[in-house]
């Protein structure tokens, strides 16, 4: 019991520190937000959603998530670069605190950042693409967090994995995208089904939940190995 409490307190400690550092610079959130906005604008220029409302409905979910995925990849590397500057990572490796707590704290922080970006983004997409969801909009409360966690979980893990390699900015998308494709497929289809109302999103929600659970467990089990791989 005290062990679980201690673990939780360490996770919160890391989370607080991440939020604190992000609050000082606000690099990640501003970067991600602007990046995704740009993607939305560029795609609406390419597809002209006003004259193709059906098409806009079908592709806006995909565009939003792909934009988020790209934006997250660019900022996730930064979240570990922070630990590498001044070799703070060594201090973490030397501390007796459980290594996976560091991972969970960071993943939770990134989850909050991406969620914040989404909160700003949803009205923007509604505006730009003239979207009125035809499906059950309340399901988005399930799809968005599940999808965000899938994205952030693997992103945080693999950016830690590629920390010590050459070309790490290139490597992260190369290993993150193939692994995350089932989650991306599920979240895009789930979102699209809510917007178009054409099919049932339940299957996709279940897939997302399964993906989240499986990969959270694997990441927790293996993070210590990654942190101490030297």
């Amino acid at each position, binding site marked *: 019991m*005290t*062990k679980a*409490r*201690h673990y939780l*307190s*360490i996770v919160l*400690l890391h989370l607080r*520190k991440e939020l*604190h*550092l992000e609050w*000082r*610079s606000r690099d990640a959130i501003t970067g991600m937000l602007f990046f995704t906005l740009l993607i939305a604008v560029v795609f609406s220029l390419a597809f002209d959603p006003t004259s193709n409302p059906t098409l806009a409905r079908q592709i806006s979910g995909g565009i939003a998530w792909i934009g988020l995925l790209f934006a997250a990849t660019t900022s996730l590397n930064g979240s570990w670069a*922070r630990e590498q*500057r*001044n*070799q*703070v990572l*060594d*201090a*973490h*490796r*030397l*501390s*007796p*605190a459980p290594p996976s707590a560091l991972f969970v704290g960071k993943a939770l922080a990134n989850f909050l950042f991406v969620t914040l970006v989404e909160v700003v983004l949803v009205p923007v997409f509604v505006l730009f693409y003239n979207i009125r969801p035809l499906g059950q909009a309340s399901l988005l409360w399930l799809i968005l967090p599940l999808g965000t966690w899938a994205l952030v979980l693997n992103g945080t893990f693999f950016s830690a994995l590629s920390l010590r390699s050459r070309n790490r900015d290139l490597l992260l998308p190369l290993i993150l995208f193939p692994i995350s494709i089932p989650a991306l497929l599920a979240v895009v289809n789930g979102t699209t089904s809510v917007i178009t109302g054409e099919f049932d999103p339940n299957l996709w929600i279940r897939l997302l939940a399964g993906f989240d659970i499986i990969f959270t467990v694997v990441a927790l089990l293996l993070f210590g190995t990654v942190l101490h791989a*030297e």
Partner: protein
Amino acid sequence: MLAAMVNAAEVNAADVQNVSLLYGNFAALRRVTCSFATGGMHLLLGENGAGKSTLLRILAGLITPSGGTVRVLEGSPAERRSRIAYMSHASMLYDEMTAMENLRYFAQLGCAPGTCALCHASPEMSLRAVGLDHTLTRPVSQYSQGMRQRVSLARVLLTDPELLLLDEPFSNMDGTGARDLVALLQDVLTWPLTTGASTGVAKRTIILTTHQHDLVSGAVDSTTRLERGTIAAEQSVAA
């Protein structure tokens, strides 16, 4: 009981046997064998690239050697993690936070389950010990090099370690600052141990590397010289 104490006194703080470390086609350490007695200050000397920092990092458990065995405080570096502290030439601090914020964070990280109450007081104490004001509100990035070095040392002292591994603690410091720090380290050696001392005779040990060895020459108990990844000379100074 007596026998146990005698044994404990004979055990070295760190034993390195036949340790090698390879990076690709470069050997940072070649079959290094040396030991550091428990208690006192031990100096590692050598040119740049001789392997001093690498040896310290191996003792800290940050690098697993390619071959050979390392025993620290009668265990593997990973097992003794909570009783060792390591200070590198990088500050190991978050630039965006103040000294106190950094230290509080690391103090809580170092807490064992259920003992957190003990740690909360120490950040101020260790900052004061290194001669810094704990009410400073500037982020660490705006400190001078020397000040950052002190905060870095304060971070090391936080966990009340038995074995201190210090990599160039006096670099970027002026003469008086460095001399103060040497005096502080000598003082630290006399501090009573409150944690991890199971035998009752455990003493603190400091292993450090420095270029300004004339600064510490009066204070050290032994000197080990590394040359191109091997031990060139080992001598202990009779007290």
